[in-house]
């Protein structure tokens, strides 16, 4: 695939558990096309979230190479990875991971501040208005509902206009109606900024909205298909 924004070649991930080494991912080869949405599905423990971590440089592969925007993430140190994410990636988690001591506005402004934007707070405010939280900017995470917290997390991920958006079961902790709104927002944001979206999900409906779906089982890619074919 010539226009791959993310590539994995023969990637293995082994982690040390209490009972010894555990093989998480085995021989993964994968390309993610620029501007497309990729769904990662599979049963629990199949390695979906770990694969997402490798794509985001949040975890180091035991062997093989992970390339993003033409750069070898495996060769970067922790600080270089942090700068790379700051400039190129947004990440959304199932558990939101908002910083509890910061308001919604401050949470969203933080990556912009870290990137050196002088107008971090203005942009953060605009981003929150975009996700419908213009009136809740000064609320702390504990004062927001689950759906609202995830919207803050989405705004935080999208604010630096990342080229790659990674989402790990972003609706896993939300009820049906709220989930729909978040999913709509996630796809709207990635479309609006032409970002590449990699989405880990258990939901068939959500996977169906992606351009391509990769099914994992026991740490290996079992199947790669278009969304229609995966259905």
């Amino acid at each position, binding site marked *: 695939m010539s226009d791959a924004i993310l590539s994995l070649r023969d990637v293995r991930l082994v982690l040390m558990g209490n009972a010894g080494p555990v093989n998480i991912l085995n021989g993964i080869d994968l390309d993610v096309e620029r501007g497309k949405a990729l769904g990662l599905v599979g049963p629990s423990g199949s390695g979906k979230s770990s694969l997402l971590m490798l794509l985001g440089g*949040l975890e180091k592969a035991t062997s093989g190479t992970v390339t993003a925007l033409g750069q070898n993430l495996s060769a970067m140190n922790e600080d270089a990875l*942090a*700068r790379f*994410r700051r400039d190129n990636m947004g990440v959304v988690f199932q558990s939101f991971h908002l*910083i509890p001591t910061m308001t919604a506005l401050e949470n969203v402004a*933080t990556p912009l*501040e*870290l990137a050196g934007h002088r107008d971090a707070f203005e942009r953060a405010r605009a981003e929150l208005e975009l996700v419908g939280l213009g009136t809740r900017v000064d609320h702390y995470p504990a004062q927001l509902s689950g759906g609202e917290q995830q919207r803050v997390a989405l705004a935080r991920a999208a604010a630096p206009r990342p080229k790659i958006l990674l989402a790990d079961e972003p609706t896993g902790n939300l009820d049906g109606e709220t989930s729909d709104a978040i999913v709509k927002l996630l796809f709207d944001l990635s479309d609006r900024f032409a970002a590449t979206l990699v989405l880990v999900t258990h939901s068939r409906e959500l996977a169906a909205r992606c351009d391509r779906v990769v099914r994992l089982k026991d740490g290996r890619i079992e199947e790669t298909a278009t969304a229609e074919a995966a259905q």
Partner: protein
Amino acid sequence: MSFGIAARIARRELRGGLKDFRIFLACLILGIAAIAAVGSVRTAIEQGLRNEGATILGGDAEMEFVYRYASDAEQAWLKINASTVSEIVKFRSMAVTGKGDNSQRALTEVKAIDSLYPIYGTVSLSPDMTLAAALTPQDGIPSAIAGRVLADRLGLSVGDTFRLGSQDFRLSALVIKEPDSAADFSFAPRTIVRAQDLQASGLLGPGTLFDSYYRMRLPPDADIKALQDNANSLFRDTGMRWRDKRNGAPGIERFVERIASFLVLVGLAGLAVGGIGVSAAVRTYLETKTSVIATLKTLGAEGRTIFWIYFLQIGFLSLIGITLGLVLGAAVPFLFAPLIAAQLPLPADFSIHWSPLAEAASYGILTALLFTLWPIARTENIRPAALFRDSVNRIAFWPRPVYVLLTAGVLAALIGVSLAYASVPKLAMWTLGGIVAAMVVLVLAAMAVKYLSRRLAKTGLLRGKTALRLAFGAVGGPQSEASSVILSLGLGLSVLAAIGQIDANLRGAIADELPDIAPSFFFVDIQPDQLEGFLARTQGDADVSRVDTVPMLRGVITRINGRPAREVAGDHWVISGDRGVTYADAIPAKTQITKGEWWPLDYNGPPLVSFAEEEGSELGLKLGDMITVNILGRDIEAKIASFRIVDFSTAGIGFVLTMNANALKSAPHTNIATVYVNENAEGKLLRDLGNTFPNITAIRVKDAIDQVVEALGSIAAATSYAAIATLITGFVVLIGAAAAGERAREYEAAILKTVGATRGQILFSFALRSAILGAAAGLVAIFAGAAAGWGVMRFVMETTYHFEPISAISIVLGGALVTLGAGLYFAWRPLAARPAGILRARE
């Protein structure tokens, strides 16, 4: 990286409030407050001594002569340079009431004054009256005033009469306060009389041991330093000693400085314990921040940004802790000033003193840095993947090498600062070495306890004994509190154990062993013509087992090989004041010569001296060296003919200097004697000798020992208070560790209840793990205390060491009980909570 961003994020993070930092703050505050308080009291006393220098000394300056009055030349110098000169004489004597078999006697320190005393300050008396009025003779009997202790010992009331030598005195008042008492340490209670009233007492005969003091009021424009230099150049070789108001009580100031310096070092042990608590609190805090740190890294924060975010937060909190500690340390002595002042026999200027606060602050800053740099630097090792899985335990132990070097630099700075502030750097070095060694032993002990517990939990021995297995499993497990509990409590207990061992051994040596080998009495001022009668009475008594007697003079070593002694030997005790000197013709029985030879009988050549071997070696003396000793204002230059062993440990007669008889026997002198007598015959012997020889002074050795033991007790008590501050800090750390583990215990209890454990079983398991940790800390403390006790007794006191089991056992029990108490207190909530709520919250 922008420092500003790190500062902003740090500020936002601190919005969570200070509740996570209660232990952190308490540890810093307690440690710093203890050091600041000790330093503030020390400075208050030093300042007080300086402010009241003239009053304490009793004049602007003073010349002291041993054993004689000032010569004509010295009197002339005083007349020229001082506007007023007051002459005082001090000596020991026996105050006697009653006659014959009904007489009672007590040792007293007599101060014979002139009409100008005191030049500064006033003597407070009860009943209230002026000194002049109190000392005016009544009905032809001279008056005296005395300390309450003497009056109580002799059953005297105001108006009663008593004798000094052969002179009767009427007690006209009790001394409440002498303005110059702080500079006058004495074993015996005071009696003050007019010098002229002693003429008929027979007490100040030739060779009597007395000191004369000439206190001066100087003109306002006098240059004290120039006067001192001038007086020293003229009279130092004649045995004159100079003191002036710039340092009115040098001995006391040095004592206060040394004790305070030692207490500050004990306080440093407290700060080290606090440091462990600080470190544990920072680690716990940062563990709760793992997800935040991982999130920030996910958002693009570099390791250095993370470091600064948390360094600034902890730095800010440290400043709060240090400031509060300083405020508390400065306020406590200030608030309790009246109480402390009432206990102190010294003037003290209680106000805010900045130098001890700066000292405490520098200790606080360095300790906070030492114990927080490492855990903060490790935040750089937290990887963003921590958001996805519990990777807390996978954070690399070692931070980047630059932080390891920084931590080592801070440790070196802390040691450097401690040595710079210490008045006795060697003591500081040993104490700090002891603290570090104890900490290393405690870390190793904690590792051993964890390892053994882990192994024990896995063996078949504990199968079926669920509570035991759980307890050992928890102590050896990954979230174990073993390290911080054993380290913090152990260090506090170690300090206390060391004090216990040293105190018990010193008391044992002085109070229990010494009286068995020491004489019952020292008799001084036995005139040569009284010696025969004295020996007849004592040696003829069946209850007296031994009498030793030698002639005694006092002299000051002024020169060694023609050079001023202080230049050659510095501040060695042998040359720092006047020393007893004796003479002998034949070699005394049991004398052990180590080098050289004793002089021949009837030797009549140039003076020879036999010098104490150990002291001679410390002074760097060798055979043939010339020693100049000033006796009664006359220089005697003697050649060292031999060195001999002198054992001071039996409290018997021991002289550093023994000269050949012809060198000294024509000088006016008296004799001293030691008498070993059965306790039940002491009273009669004392009465008989007192009645026959009223001028002879008896010093009961047991009384002197009691006073030394009492003084030791006070020092041990002061040290124990500082050690208890250490222990309290250790207790705070312990509570912190117990509180930090409460959630884990809650979860554990919920699971155990779910699988059928009773509350009793769970409580037993929790109690057991606390007791294991407390006992381990206590056991290490015993070994550390014994090692410190052995070191001090063997190398400092040069005596034997005996393990003292009672304080040791109390320490282990105390440690186990304290840990048990804290463990049980924090087990209460986990036991009371319903499992469903706890388990649901974890999902």
